[in-house]
């Protein structure tokens, strides 16, 4: 008994080391970003493998210029995730569990919408937004960013919804639960993993969106950080340390949010229900 416990601990430690090594290899470019962010201001992309001195000019500039933009990005991303989930979760349930006519066609359409070049959508959106007065508004950005995540979230969550045991749902219906009740109380919790993963990526889609930020804003009032970073990117010269510092700062709140979300992806979310 004791030896198997120790064997498991050894294996755990070995896995941790392997995990860290894997990350070091995969995230070497990220290390490079941090390396460049502490170089002296305005320097180019070439640098030694390790920073010889630490300059914080990049961070000073980033904090001074981009704080408001980071908040904007954060707010737009979170709102867009909420909107996406509100629309996508019921739709995913419907496509998974209901016998609706044209279901396959709907799935195909959802897949193909992901195919449309962003610039095509942005061009059309600009005219409509201009007519409706949605340019430079938080609502406008959220609506546009959600449009990219919703089909994706539907496809992903639908898979999770398909794994919900029909027997449990039927039992609930026989007990008198309505359509919406059985959806909310049984299906949603059981599809939790898919929902969390979908929210993760909806957040990331919006967080890293540049096209809609560029197209749907004309003033500095509402400026997500993907656009704000161009304060340092010019045709003739680029302040790379500020660019990288902004990127590092931008990654931090996102990582925190992702950490929190990942905790909720628990094992066997749907497994135990039938017992």
């Amino acid at each position, binding site marked *: 008994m004791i030896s198997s416990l120790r064997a498991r601990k050894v294996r755990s430690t070995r896995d941790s080391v392997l995990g860290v090594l894997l990350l070091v290899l995969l995230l070497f470019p990220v290390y490079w970003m941090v390396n460049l962010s502490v170089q002296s201001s*305005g320097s*180019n*992309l*070439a640098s030694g493998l390790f920073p010889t001195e630490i300059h914080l000019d990049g961070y000073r500039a980033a904090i001074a210029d981009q704080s408001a933009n980071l908040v904007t990005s954060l707010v737009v991303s979170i709102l867009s995730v909420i909107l996406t989930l509100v629309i996508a979760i019921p739709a995913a349930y419907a496509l998974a569990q209901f016998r609706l006519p044209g279901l396959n066609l709907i799935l195909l359409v959802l897949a193909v919408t992901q195919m449309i070049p962003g*610039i095509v959508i*942005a*061009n059309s959106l*600009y*005219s*409509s937004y*201009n*007519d*409706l*007065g*949605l*340019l*430079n*508004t*938080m*609502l*406008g950005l959220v*609506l546009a960013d959600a449009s990219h995540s919703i089909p994706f979230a539907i496809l992903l969550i639908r898979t999770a919804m398909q794994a919900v045991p029909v027997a449990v749902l039927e039992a609930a219906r026989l007990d008198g639960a309505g359509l919406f009740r059985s959806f909310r109380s049984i299906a949603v919790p059981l599809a939790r993993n898919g929902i969390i993963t979908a929210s993760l990526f909806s957040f990331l889609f919006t967080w890293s969106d540049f096209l809609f930020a*560029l*197209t749907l*804003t*004309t*003033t500095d*009032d509402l400026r997500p950080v993907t*656009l704000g970073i*161009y*304060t*340092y*990117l*010019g*045709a*003739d*010269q*680029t*302040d790379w340390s500020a660019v990288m510092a902004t990127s590092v700062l931008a990654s931090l709140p996102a990582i925190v949010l992702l950490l929190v979300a990942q905790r909720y992806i628990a094992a066997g979310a749907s497994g135990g229900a039938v017992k």
Partner: protein
Amino acid sequence: MTHASRRSRRLALVATLAGTAAALTSCAGGGATSTSGDVDTLRVADYYTDEPARSIIGDTLDACGASIGVTIEREAVPSSDYLSKILQQSSSRTLPDVQMIDAQDLPAIASSGALSPLAERSVPTDNVGDSVLSLGTVDDEVYGLAPTVGTIVMFVNNDLLQQAGVAVPTTWDELTAAAAALTVDGRYGIAFSAKNDGQGTYAFLPLLWSAGGSEDELDSDAARAALQLEVDLVSSGSASQSTVQWGNSDVGDQFLTGSAAMAITSGTQMSKLDAEGGRNYSITAIPVPTAGDTAVAPLGGEVWTLPRSGDDAREKAAADLLACIMSDENQLSLAEQRRVVPANPELDSAYLETLPQLADYVAVVRDGRSRTAILQEAWPTTNQAIWTAVQSAVTGQSSVDEALADAAASAASAQ
């Protein structure tokens, strides 16, 4: 509009009615006012989002705005995407009152009808040199004016050249020899841009033009000689293969870090070199094929244009703003701050008083040529054909002859 689009537009209106009320109370940008009368604000768009250019241009705009009694609402868009912005605003008729356009993109936008010829707006064009005027001319009408222009030149590292006992090259043969002599371990003799965008073409044109070639005849001996020079510099190891990746800014970086002893790049890289300090450099014209030839280089920079808005008062105010931007004082001030050359040749003496070391630079600009002068709207296709040919030949993918034959063919397909 198609039926489907009209229907979806109506649906869009219905669906967002609730949100529109809230949205409208917040700052809604876009539409130009159609009421004439007193003008409070003018919308101006440019693509200098980064410092220090952002402030330099912003200050000039604000000062000019103040002088004619308007506030400037500025929209700065990243240079890589400003064209799609112009097109979007063009289709919804919400172009700003004054729009900055890169000189080589002007024919495409002017031909769309969205810009007023400056003659219609009575904007004076007399304090601008001929070559600079040609930058803003499309189909014999002047659509835009550039207060300053730049060009591509050769930077040489005086210390490194002295160490190697090499004189500043003025002909192609001298250039090849100097580059070879200056190439040692860890350093290339020369760096230039062979990137697959306008910057690669920008570096090729001075070679083509100084050899007597022309951009509408890519299958010529002059073109072959010019391309062969670039190919030889890379294949002999005097220039890095990475030239196909580098833009002007990257080439400037190579020179700045001492990785290249000479660099052919845009004059605007000067600000970078002066800021960092410590590089003892000179600027000279790009070498010519044989001694005595004239160095002809392409002019680079942007023109300010006046999109149509249909509102007489706004159009008049915009014209006044442009005239202010083009004033001699502003030309000089912008040129000195950004290390480019004023458009008005009469300002040369004043300019060289402040920056005497740039005499060669000014001379090259005065002999410079607009890239769109001959081809006008067909330039963009030729531009792409040229940089593709340069890349094919420099990477060894095709021979110089094949590359230029292909280029001539694809350029012809557009005309």
